[in-house]
């Protein structure tokens, strides 16, 4: 992993068109700004992981759907 040290107000660039800026640091928190092209989705990692886990759980359970369960929603 690449490790960079940055101060508030400084930034770094990923590729040619993604810029991450450190806006503010205070009491163990870092406020970051992201400038990225529209087609690049930016998510907090834990949200992405939650969606991944939900998808995997949905897939694993898809064999258990029964007509009884679905019938309730007819």
């Amino acid at each position, binding site marked *: 992993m690449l490790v960079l040290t940055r101060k508030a107000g400084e930034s770094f660039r990923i590729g040619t068109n993604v810029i991450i800026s450190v806006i503010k640091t205070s009491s163990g928190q870092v406020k970051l700004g992201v400038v990225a092209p*529209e*087609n*690049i*989705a930016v*998510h907090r990692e834990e*949200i*992405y992981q*939650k*969606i*991944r*886990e*939900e*998808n*995997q*759980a*949905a*897939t694993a*359970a*898809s*064999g*258990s*759907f*029964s*007509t009884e*369960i*679905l*019938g*309730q*929603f*007819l």
Partner: protein
Amino acid sequence: MENESMMQQPNSSPQTPKPEKGPQFRIDAEQGIAIEFPGGIPGFEELHHYHLFELLDYPHFAFLVADDASHVAMLLLDPKVISQKIEVTVPPEKLTQISLSQEEKICTFFILRLNHSLGKLTANLRAPIIVSTEQKTGYQVILDDESLPISYPLVPDTSSASAPTSTPGQENSFTTIKQATRTSNGER
């Protein structure tokens, strides 16, 4: 194995014994629509080709199966049928994010999960599946609205038991996508 039970013969009579494992509903294996997911789906980033099937007896549901991994299969819900209870809109900037124009005709689905601990069917409202009906491409967008639950418990609407939310022949998202297929084929 799992796949075989899923791909039950569409014309099998109701008396056909149900498989012990695998979804206990019928799909028309011939009528699947090929959908490409250019970016994959979180958790299955490497899978890009799927088929979308309509459930023959349950017009509000669809079944999404990965072409190269039949165990990657998800039950989807057409949100139109529960829209009176759930309002989820995909903001235009999300469409731009997945390279779809705002004029694009899209269909939205929720991924369903059978939650054993809750004993209930839950829908992921935070990250709907969006299908471009023209391009036949699919995306799972993660909405920014943190109030949208990932596990929204679905409750059967008993009050409308005598007045079904959809009437036979009514358009669902699947038929919309299917019709778009016909139109684009006809134009060529």
